[in-house]
């Protein structure tokens, strides 16, 4: 960590830590969008323009998750995954590799799957987040969730939220799918129990029910 002075006087520290900077920089496109369109994050743009530095102390931001606008106090180094899990207690999103290699932390950002462990929570802006907790609507499961239950597509269950997110996105964008499509949709999802064959079967079965 670079912020050696942080303990003695946090106010002296000038910037966010290297780790969180790198994470934010990984999504630079989203970051630049944030600067122009973010309506939630406490006039971030104006304050930045006025020369205000952010961090390392926590700031209050707003974020729309599963249709609800949430207010949360987070340090600038907080990832979206950590914000969801540690601040909003939406723990269905899992952190497994913490470097974008396993898809266990998949959430949708305006409907598109992203690795929430690789994204700064400050880069979310006014985009809408959907987590695994938001997939079932009004207590009604998505056909993919129903099929996962029916075809025993869970074992330990730790990869399951990420798998469901990948497969739901596939079906929501294309209902005429084959095995290769399911494999491609889940090709980034690590599962150590070896649940893949039942995930494939479940998703193909769900696609038949939705058409």
């Amino acid at each position: 960590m670079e912020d050696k002075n942080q303990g003695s006087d946090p106010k002296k520290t000038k910037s966010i830590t290297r780790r969180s900077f790198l994470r934010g920089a990984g999504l630079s496109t989203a970051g630049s969008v944030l600067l122009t369109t973010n309506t939630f994050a406490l006039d971030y743009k104006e304050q930045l323009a006025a020369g205000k530095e952010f961090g390392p102390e926590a700031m209050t931001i707003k974020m729309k998750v599963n249709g609800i606008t949430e207010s949360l106090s987070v340090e600038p180094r907080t990832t979206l995954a950590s914000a969801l899990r540690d601040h909003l207690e939406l723990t269905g999103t899992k952190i497994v590799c913490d470097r974008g290699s396993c898809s266990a932390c998949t959430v949708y950002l305006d409907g598109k799957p992203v690795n929430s462990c690789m994204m700064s929570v400050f880069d979310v802006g006014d985009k809408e987040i959907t987590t695994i907790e938001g997939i079932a609507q009004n207590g009604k499961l998505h056909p993919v969730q129903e099929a996962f239950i029916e075809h025993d597509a869970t074992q330990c269950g730790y990869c399951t939220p990420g798998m469901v997110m990948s497969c739901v996105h596939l079906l929501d964008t294309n209902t005429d799918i084959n095995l290769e499509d399911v494999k491609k949709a889940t090709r980034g999802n690590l599962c150590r129990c070896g649940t893949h064959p039942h995930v494939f079967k479940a998703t193909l079965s769900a696609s038949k029910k939705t058409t």
Partner: protein
Amino acid sequence: MNTKKEKFPYGIPGHNLGEIEREIPIEEPPVWPVNDKLKVIGKRVTRIDALDKVTGKAKYTSDMKLPGMLYAKMLRSNVPHAVITSIDISKAKNLTGVHAIHLIENSPKEGEENTKGKYPMVKYVGQPLGGVAAESLEIAKDAIALIKVNYEEKPFVIDMEAAMEIGAPIVFDEPITQQEDGGDVGEVHDGSKGQGNVRGPSTSSFFGGPRGDLEKGFAEADVVVERTYRTQVHTHMPLETHGVVVDWKPDLMMVYTSTQNTNNVRNEMASIFNLPKSKVRVVCDFMGGGFGAKHSAGSFGPMAANLAKKSGRPVWLMLDRQEEHLAEGNRPSSKQYLKIGAKNDGTLTGIQQRSHGTAGVGLGAGVGRIAQILYSCPNFATEQYDVLTNAGPGAAWRAPGNVQGAFGLEQAIDELAEKLKMDPLSYRDHIDKSEVRKVERQRGAALFDWSRRQPAGSGKGVVKKGLGVGQSTWPRFVTLDSSVEIKIHNDGGVEVRSSVQDIGTGTKTILAQVVAEELGLQVKDIKVNIGDTFFPVGPGSGGSVVTGSITPPTRNAAFEAKKELLNLVAKKWETDAAELFISDGQVGHNTDTELKMSFKEATKLMRTSQISKTASRSDDYGGFQQPWGLAYGDLGSVQFAEVSVNTNTGFVKVDKIVAAHSCGRPLNIGQLESQINGGVIQGVSYALYENRVMDKSTGHMVNANVDQYKVPFSMEIPEIESIIVEEYSARSSTDAYGIGEPANIATAAAIANAVYNAIGVRIYEIPITPSSILKALNKVS
């Protein structure tokens, strides 16, 4: 003891099903018929906790958040071998948000002088040295980075063969003992014997020691195969890492943990902190995978407890991905020499095995019992050595030892068959006495279409197809210390309670099935509350012991509770309770069909608000092979592999696996298929992909992550078809066993045999990589 004689189904339906009479204790429940005649058992019942999993509502240890909870991070060594001269925590201590720091120190027994220095010696990179608890994980990480550890570094050794040399740096200059959850569970590896880093040998197992006369055996042989096989170290990489949340209340230590063994963690924590077992409660509701590595409280459990004690707050301590790879277990490597002799008619005359393996700083790097027991051979001896290296300790990994052992043995048998000019499958018919594997070979060969197999290396074209087979055996282990409580509440609710945990295999669901079947109810009517040491002690989830250990007492307790309930109904109806039964949620009478009462109504007859019955695992009907719970018979499997090998690129693809397995009476077909799929996929991974890569010059693991530690993802998953052979042996009230370990044993051997069949050159080392294929084909040097 009062006994009764009962006739049980015995054998394999569709093959040799018959009956056997057993004399069993009088209190045992009546005989269950074969699965065809049962309502819930042996069916595709959906997992009772699947809804929680698919909606993200399942709470794992890592998801826990208690009021006032702190987040902890471990301090670990970054050198492989050293004396710690000092640890400076002054900067970390002053960091805002840090609440407690705990360092691991040598603690001599009372009255003894500490001659070992303040801190334990560092023996591998990643060894735990201490921990910090802070208000956030990020602060805890910052604090760890501020701790300065001064080392006096010592020479170290990472490579197994280098560690075996005379003059190699010595990892331990003292006798060491095997951890209970060490690499090769069920074997005693003696760390006091041997020289330097080479400890052992272990020469026997619970199946006995050497037998016959090897010299005579090889003299009688017409054909001999003599080879050396090598397997890599691979790590467990469960998706949820090891970890705990400890909430140390004044009179109770609450431990939430991701474990395969709540009871063992409870016992360890009680012992370490000198607490009565009654004041430690360990809970594991959901856990994100273990595969053998999560039987213990490890060092993270006591660390979190010490930090909780110092800070007075609950402490969350989950490891990160790198720590998981470095310090929380791996399957030890092996270098196995095998010599097998046979007569011209195929009869085996001698098997000699000598293995070396490294479990790092741990013991247990054996190659199991598979060469000893899979085939009958009058002359056999094994010597299994542990080689100590400066690397993280091994741990049990799905069928410990035997996966390595099968990779050697099953290739040697293939090679022997070829020398004898016999088909490898027919040759196994000749030397394998197991009836269940005979059926598996027949049914598997038909489904796989083994007749397609061509002579080795005879395929035309760049991409060559190959077919191979591998077999396995796994003992039927039973943990006798397995108890269950069944409660029937007076509102019709039924509850199952045990400390046994569900590690993703579906234990919760099979318990609900067993109770539903016994009580004539539906699975949804049964609430399963397990993974809590406040309930009766259940087995650890390892060695495929759970199903065989916990389902019989579950049925027996349900049977006892039912008897008590039916007695109340009989009293009301003024009839004999023996005439009553429960079916489809209704109590009925065998002869008087007018008499009917719903189960719920019957529970209102109770004098107290509940009936509670606890049962423990009875001895096997007919006794055990070893009194501690080694049952007769084996869990046999035969797996068939079809591969494509690109002879230009060396790329191997597993196209298909047919896996034929037995587990006694199958309880839940969908869950069994899931576990078979998992065992096979991990076997594919072991054969072709994963490998712990160590930097010999620094002692660091270079691929301690997900992106460089290659395991199969969806694009590498073969088509898998499973065959589950029902096999009745009349050994308990459920006659059911597990399948987790057997599913993983034969796959790598079957793939290696298929690769040989494709290219006509044998590969004796895994992982089989493009480079090893191209080297075998003399395309690169």
